[in-house]
């Protein structure tokens, strides 16, 4: 650690950043296919229970995060109905970074779905009809016409989801606690530092990191979306 840049933060802070990025990336990437599917369902299909599905997806946005975290704990904890089923397969969420990823995925899901759903609604179904008259099967139309056209919306949704996951605190700390090196994400670390005497300095540095990560995610995706649009 000879670089002054690296010395700027202590090992525990670096660990929190690394863990946060890992948790957010995993949460975003693994939930993205499901988010695309749910967004498509909500944008393009009319089925009984449409409102219920929409409500369930948006629930984490409205519920107090501590409630979501508690519900995750009693469902996916080692004693919970789902947690107990998954434990023999080595899939454990409680008090692990995987639990933090699950909490982040659920909390960011409504934002990701919303952005992608708007993308689906903006695609002209007449283009998909044209593809159908040219003989393309529906799945092929989805992959070659619909998905490329909503790529900017997927990018925007994923970025928004990533930023939300980086900032997730309430559900995460309730579900997986705040164990340094195991479940202590960036916001949890800031919270822990603020509880300690003399922790304001390192906390402020982590706050700056949060701002830089969030800003670069948003600016980066805008840049990509604009480059995509320019190719049209």
């Amino acid at each position, binding site marked *: 650690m000879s670089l002054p840049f690296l010395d700027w933060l202590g090992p525990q802070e670096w660990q929190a950043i690394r863990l946060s990025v890992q948790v957010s990336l995993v949460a975003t990437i693994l939930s993205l296919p499901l988010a695309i599917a749910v967004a498509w369902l909500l944008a393009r299909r009319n089925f009984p229970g449409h409102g219920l599905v929409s409500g369930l997806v948006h629930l984490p946005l409205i519920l107090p995060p501590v409630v979501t975290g508690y519900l995750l704990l009693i469902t996916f904890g080692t004693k919970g109905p789902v947690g107990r089923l998954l434990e023999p397969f080595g899939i454990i969420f409680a008090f692990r970074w995987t639990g933090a990823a699950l909490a982040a995925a659920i909390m960011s899901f409504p934002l990701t779905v919303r952005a992608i759903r708007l993308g689906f609604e903006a695609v002209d179904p007449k283009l998909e009809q044209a593809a159908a008259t*040219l003989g*393309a099967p529906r799945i092929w139309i989805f992959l070659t016409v619909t998905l490329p*056209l909503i790529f900017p919306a997927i990018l925007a949704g994923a970025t928004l989801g990533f930023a939300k996951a980086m900032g997730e605190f309430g559900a995460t700390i309730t579900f997986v606690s705040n164990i340094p090196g195991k479940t202590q994400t960036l916001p949890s670390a800031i919270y822990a530092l603020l509880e300690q005497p003399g922790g304001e300095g390192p906390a402020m540095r982590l706050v700056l990191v949060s701002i830089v990560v969030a800003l670069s995610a948003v600016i980066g995706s805008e840049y990509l979306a604009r480059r995509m649009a320019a190719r049209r």
Partner: protein
Amino acid sequence: MSLSVDIRHQFPGLDLNVAFEAPTGVTALFGPSGCGKSTTVNAIAGLMRPDSGRIVLDGRALYDSDRRIDLPPQARRIGCVFQDARLFPHMTVAANLRYPARFRKGAARDFDRIVEMLALGPLLNRRPSTLSGGERQRTAIGRALLSDPQLLIMDEPLAALDDARKEEIMPWLERLRDEVQLPILYVSHSVAEVLRLATTVVLMQKGRVAHSGPLTQILADPELAPQLGAREAGALITGTVEAREADGMVRVATSAGPLLLADLDAQPGQMLRLRILAHEIILSREAPVGLSALNVLPATVTAVSDGLVQLKLGDQKALAQVTPRSVEVLGLTPGTPCFAVIKSVAMARS
């Protein structure tokens, strides 16, 4: 190859009940906006399911409510050219043209021929957003042809273009009609397009077929011609260029007799589609003498209706616009022999 349609569909504002046949050649679906033209072609293409009826293409049922047949658009083999072209904006022209190749292998080998026929070569690497309206429609036509269709539907393909662009694309459509052995269903509310392209006309009004038949027959029908617009009533006569005379006039042989045309750039032997409008014909009971008009043909009155007199000119029908007073004074009744003085003849196609 032919298409047979008999469908019924009801939705707010329109009660659709149409039946017609479309043989090889261009069948124009003609009528005012909102008469159900687009709904009808969408049903044929499989983009909309009618309440009941039958759609049969070349002996193959595409839709039959009694037999519970409803093929998806993918299985219908109908190429569509829409008013808004509907090119894929994220693909180049070449990628748009090759899009159907994966599923309709039959037409893939025609790629070079169709690119050449529609002069798409210089556009292949461009994106749709950089094309003019006319170039977009040419690409859309090429893409539809490369889907190896058994029927081509063109839904107002020129409606979004200005007059100059229409003129630019029209020759391609004429070429398509003459070179591609396909039934073409052409939706339009423009009389000019119908006159220039159609071989068969289906007149639609308020969700019903008012009349259908060969264009020549409809133009010369005093009851139907006004539906195309009063100024457009008249005759469509085909003739063959015989010779260019010393003074530059061109002599065209028709079944009714020779016609002399000025300012015509045509070669001997060429087939022409000529239009004689009803208000360009003067009728005379006697063979007229001392007239400046060059074209006087013997004719027989076959019907009289509402200021329009139907004539038999050779083996073709024509209409003359005559006031009710003249009808009475000249005693124009069916069977009366007379002479048609033709003031001018227009070309319907080059």
